[in-house]
């Protein structure tokens, strides 16, 4: 298979969703069924193509590249050569990611056909799904920072559009704005990072930058700048992957339709940040990687603790997503490159499944509540659920499989990837002494198992509160169940490695290998081989430990919520401070509200005061000053503008002096006595004039001199008109007499 065909197929995959978007946004409403079949089938074609590319690519060692110059300004003065290349790269990383994106997107399309049925903006919803897939594929396929940034912003845009899909709801509109703005904060960092790199290397291409770096070139000749660039680019990932401290937008993003949460806020868009770290991994210095690892660990811990106390099923899943993203980031940060990316892939499958499963539950709850004309009960609150196991068997079974996967139970894909990440952190701890990271890692693993089983038990086990309601709950339609089954199947180990306890031997580890670092040796992280060695040693303890904590977590959940051995409410009451703290999400929203929003408001108020008082005061002062000058020496003057009076008088005197002096000097470059006398006279005149102005006001001058002149001319014309009117009798014979007289006068004059 020639590489050219693969490149072509990849470009087709990239452009197909865009075509779907364009057709649906313009003609969606006119198409039969509002065009949902079109979006879905286009994505299905893209999925087939991406699987084809994926299989073909794994057989080729080298990565495929295609790029073309987009704009070339040539040699710009003061800047140097300025040229932007666009292009795509198809390597194992992007081939895998492409399949993940297309697969999740296709299944979400399919699921949405059921879930979104009868929605007000049905066709627009599918169009937005298309533009999202397109922008995500740009990020996946690009070979340069420029397109990466474009895709980055486009993903932010489509996320904004989809979160605010039900914009009539204020909370949804607010959430979409919040997501957009919080993401923008991270993007500024990313932009700055890209600019640092561009300033030094004069190119946006990943490979070109890495090649230049491997020859020892670093930004501004300092390794610190390289670390800064790495951390700044990671800022983009902090925003998009909802890492601490910019994680606050993701839980609110659950205001969007649930399939969107599955597609964007669980499986793909938030994974873009992780993908970005994977792409830029070679240029990360040891310090930058440590920063990344700690950010991931802190994020994982904070969100896992919050997830325990939440009652909204989607909120719990949102925090678990943040927590798992923290895992991936942490994995990449400690140097477990393959493990981190592996966790991204497996997590995409089971988290998309979890969200779609919760969507299925919410859909059923919503319809049951709607049937009972109950508009007060929250269909997303897990405390209102329970006992759905029998009514929704497929949803339950698949949900259970996802939960087992995310908790890291053997035989699932999550076990493989999570174990690999944890082994990586343990190895990092033993190599560098940062033991806090593995400790947080294992703690979060236990917490994850606990809160995930908490929602499974509260949703599916036990008895339903309302017996009338449970009768109305049914399994969701086929289009919704099918994606659940596919994701559940893909949550098993066999798709990634044939060895159920170790992923090392599987195709994934073969396909995705940690790239060589290109940063100077002095700031490099632990070398891959030494790290592999440490991971190898850490593997068995990590696996044992993770099994123990996951088992404890699951056991704790069952003890608390199923067998009721531990009373959760009593515990919550006993530790009411901690519980309230967690329930309110560590008060991050309140903190940001006070510091960022309040700070902005404070600065704005200050500026408003400045504008109102100083700027407007100046403008109004000028106006009243002019007014005073115009209307002359009247009461207004007397009372208010004594200072201004003197100022005006003196100012005009000095002005006249300067004007006359400069005029004199213009006439005679060498000042003579006469010029001084002239200047004195001029100034005196101008002073007198000024006094006249001051006394009568400029209005007086205008009134008497200017108006007098104009009116005088008018009167003169009028008077002469009156005089000559007498002569103009209209009697021709009189005119002839005048002519006769005139001729006679002339005759005697020129005789």
């Amino acid at each position, binding site marked *: 298979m020639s590489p050219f065909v693969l490149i072509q197929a990849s470009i087709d995959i990239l452009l197909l969703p865009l075509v779907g978007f364009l057709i649906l946004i313009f003609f969606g409403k006119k198409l039969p069924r509002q065009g949902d079949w079109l979006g879905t089938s286009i994505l299905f074609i893209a999925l087939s193509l991406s699987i084809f590319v994926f299989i073909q690519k794994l057989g080729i060692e080298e990565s495929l590249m295609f790029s073309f110059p987009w704009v070339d300004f040539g040699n710009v003065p003061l800047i140097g050569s300025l040229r932007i290349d666009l292009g795509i790269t198809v390597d194992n990383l992007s081939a895998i990611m492409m399949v993940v994106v297309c697969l999740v997107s296709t299944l979400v399309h399919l699921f949405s056909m059921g879930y979104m049925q009868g929605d007000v903006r049905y066709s627009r919803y599918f169009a937005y799904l298309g533009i999202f897939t397109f922008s995500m594929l740009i990020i996946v396929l690009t070979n340069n920072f420029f397109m990466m940034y474009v895709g980055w912003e486009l993903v932010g845009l489509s996320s904004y559009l989809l979160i605010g899909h039900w914009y009539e709801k204020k909370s949804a509109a607010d959430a979409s704005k919040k997501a957009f703005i919080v993401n923008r904060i991270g993007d500024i960092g990313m932009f700055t990072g890209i600019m640092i790199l561009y300033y030094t290397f004069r190119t946006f291409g990943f490979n070109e930058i890495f090649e230049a770096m491997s020859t020892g070139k670093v930004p501004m000749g300092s390794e610190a700048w390289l670390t800064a660039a790495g951390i700044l680019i990671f800022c983009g990932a902090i925003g998009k992957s909802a890492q601490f401290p910019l994680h606050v937008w993701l839980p609110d993003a659950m205001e969007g339709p649930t399939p969107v949460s599955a597609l964007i806020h669980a499986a793909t868009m938030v994974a873009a940040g992780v993908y970005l770290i994977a792409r830029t991994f070679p240029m990360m210095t040891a310090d930058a990687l440590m920063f990344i690892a700690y950010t991931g660990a802190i994020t994982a811990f904070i969100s896992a603790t919050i997830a325990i106390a939440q009652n909204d099923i989607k909120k719990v899943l949102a925090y678990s997503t943040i927590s798992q993203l923290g895992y991936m980031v942490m994995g990449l940060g400690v140097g477990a490159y393959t493990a981190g990316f592996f966790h991204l892939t497996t997590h995409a499958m089971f988290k998309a499944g979890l969200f779609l499963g919760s969507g299925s539950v919410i859909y059923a709850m919503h319809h049951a509540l709607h049937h009972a004309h109950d508009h007060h009960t929250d269909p997303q609150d897990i405390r209102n659920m329970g006992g759905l196991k029998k009514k929704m068997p497929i949803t339950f079974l698949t949900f259970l499989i996802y939960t087992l996967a995310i908790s890291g139970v053997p035989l699932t894909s999550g076990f493989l990837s999570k174990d690999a990440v944890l082994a990586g952190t343990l190895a990092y701890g033993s190599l560098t002494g940062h033991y806090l990271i593995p400790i947080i890692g294992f703690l979060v693993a236990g917490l994850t198992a606990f809160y995930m089983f908490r929602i499974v038990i509260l949703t599916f086990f036990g008895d339903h509160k309302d017996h009338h309601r449970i009768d109305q709950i049914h399994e969701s339609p086929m289009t919704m169940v099918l994606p659940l089954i596919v994701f559940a199947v893909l949550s098993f180990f066999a798709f990634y490695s044939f060895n159920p306890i170790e992923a090392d031997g599987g195709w994934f580890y073969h396909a995705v290998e940690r790239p060589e670092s290109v940063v100077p040796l002095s700031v490099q992280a632990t070398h891959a081989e030494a790290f592999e060695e440490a991971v190898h040693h850490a593997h068995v303890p990590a696996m044992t430990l993770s099994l123990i904590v996951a088992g404890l977590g699951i056991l704790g959940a069952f003890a608390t919520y199923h067998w009721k051995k531990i009373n959760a409410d009593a515990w919550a009451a006993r530790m009411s401070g901690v519980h309230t703290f967690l329930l309110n999400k560590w008060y991050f929203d309140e903190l940001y509200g006070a510091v960022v929003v309040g700070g902005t408001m404070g600065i704005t108020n200050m500026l408003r005061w400045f504008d109102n008082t100083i700027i407007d005061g100046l403008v109004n002062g000028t106006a009243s000053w002019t007014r005073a000058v115009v209307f002359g020496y009247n009461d207004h003057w007397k009372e208010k503008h004594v200072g201004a009076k003197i100022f005006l008088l003196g100012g005009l005197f000095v002005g006249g002096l300067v004007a006359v002096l400069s005029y004199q000097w213009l006439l005679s470059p060498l000042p003579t006595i006469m010029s001084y006398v002239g200047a004195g006279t001029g100034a005196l005149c101008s002073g007198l004039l000024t006094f006249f102005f001051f006394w009568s006001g400029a209005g007086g001058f205008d009134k008497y001199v200017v108006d007098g002149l104009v009116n005088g001319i008018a009167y003169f014309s009028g008077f002469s008109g009156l005089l000559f009117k007498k002569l103009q009798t*209209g*009697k*021709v*014979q009189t005119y*002839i*007499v005048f002519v*006769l007289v005139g001729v006679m006068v002339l005759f005697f004059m020129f005789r």
Partner: protein
Amino acid sequence: MQVGLTHYLIVSALLFSFGLFAVVTRRNAILVLMGIELILNSANINFIAFSRYGGMKLDGQAFAVFIIILAAAEAAVALAIVLNIYQRFNTVNVDEVSKLKE
């Protein structure tokens, strides 16, 4: 007594004066026109006299013929105007025809 240029000029001057007097004093439009006619003919006499005594060929006579033709045309147009004025204002008194002044 030999009739010379002076005699012609005196006749012409008298004729011009009578014509001018008629134009200036008469109120009747027809009479004004007749005065103009006299002025034109006094000019004719001058042309022919200067032509005859000035040693020229027939230049003056040619001018005179042109003026006679023009006078005829002028009289036709002017009489038509006067006729119209009479139809509209029922008078040919030039002083009373002052509608445009108002």
